[in-house]
């Protein structure tokens, strides 16, 4: 019976043609892969494959150029918004986006991000917030939650010693240059679809010249959190979402 169903004319969903056949180096269950797929689908649907420029971060997504078949520039740690500024100013007709993690965007690249947003550069920023530095072994990042255990705060984040977790998307919403800021997640199929819509809107804003769009994606780093992928999603729903509330923060 299954042989009748499995035929090219009955195909309803498969990975985008822009996702290369290379097997991703991410840990099993990593949300980066899901977000890569959604970005590729949006670019494919917009027909922008030949007109897209991506600024890659430093972090686990450093090899993004191996997985999405668009032109990419590998930026120094945190400097993706600065590179994207140059790319968009030199090529205003191209779709320019950056892909950054929380360590890249809100720690070392906070200055570049703030000023790119303040200048209202017409770029889209995809911001993966998983509350730790995933690539280097799960160290504390600015968005680590209070009491959350990481390799550099093994007894949990202490507010007196380490400061408060930063909601950088809300900070950026205060700036005049930003036009669309939303916080989404990828823990269920419905959330993945919503994230895809948000990415599409951010890319369209970038092409329409409305200002900087930021799509924050609250994601799980199951390897860094020392959990199974499914447990990490449940933990994220229970602990991350009350603090990082999902939904649009700014839309104009």
């Amino acid at each position, binding site marked *: *019976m*299954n042989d009748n169903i499995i035929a090219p004319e009955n195909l309803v969903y498969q990975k985008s043609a822009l996702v290369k056949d290379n097997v991703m180096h*991410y840990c099993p269950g*990593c949300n980066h892969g899901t977000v890569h797929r959604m970005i590729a689908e949006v670019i494919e649907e917009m027909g922008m494959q030949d007109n897209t420029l991506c600024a890659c971060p430093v972090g686990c997504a450093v090899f993004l150029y191996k997985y999405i078949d668009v032109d990419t520039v590998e930026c120094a740690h945190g400097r993706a918004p600065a590179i994207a500024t140059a790319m968009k100013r030199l090529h205003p007709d191209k779709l320019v986006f950056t892909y950054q993690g929380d360590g890249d965007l809100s720690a070392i690249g906070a200055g570049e991000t703030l000023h790119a947003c303040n200048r209202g550069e017409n770029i889209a920023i995809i911001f993966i917030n998983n509350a730790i530095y995933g690539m280097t072994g799960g160290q504390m990042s600015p968005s680590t939650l209070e009491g959350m255990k990481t390799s550099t705060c093994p007894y949990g984040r202490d507010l007196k010693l380490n400061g408060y977790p930063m909601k950088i998307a809300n900070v950026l919403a205060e700036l005049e240059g930003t036009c669309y800021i939303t916080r989404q997640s990828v823990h269920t199929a419905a959330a993945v679809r919503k994230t895809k819509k948000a990415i599409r809107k951010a890319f369209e804003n970038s092409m329409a010249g409305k200002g900087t769009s930021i799509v924050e994606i609250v994601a799980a780093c199951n390897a860094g959190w020392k959990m199974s992928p499914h447990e990490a999603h449940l933990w994220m729903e229970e602990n991350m979402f009350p603090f990082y509330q999902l939904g649009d923060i700014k839309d104009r």
Partner: protein
Amino acid sequence: MAKVKGAVEVDVNRCKGCELCVFACPSKVLALSQSVNDKGYAYAYMKQPELCIGCASCAYMCPDGCIKVYKIKQ
């Protein structure tokens, strides 16, 4: 009423056995295999293929894009 039937095809050697598709499936079709692929991961397969409705939830959740979804109306 037209009955919807689905089927999924998993790219076995791309699958890392993260099990997200297994938890995402509303009809409990998928499960992880007892055998392993080239990299040593247990991979997802259709344990109860007759229950699949072709909703593509598994494929949307799959971080590695290993799942193809097919659907027919009978």
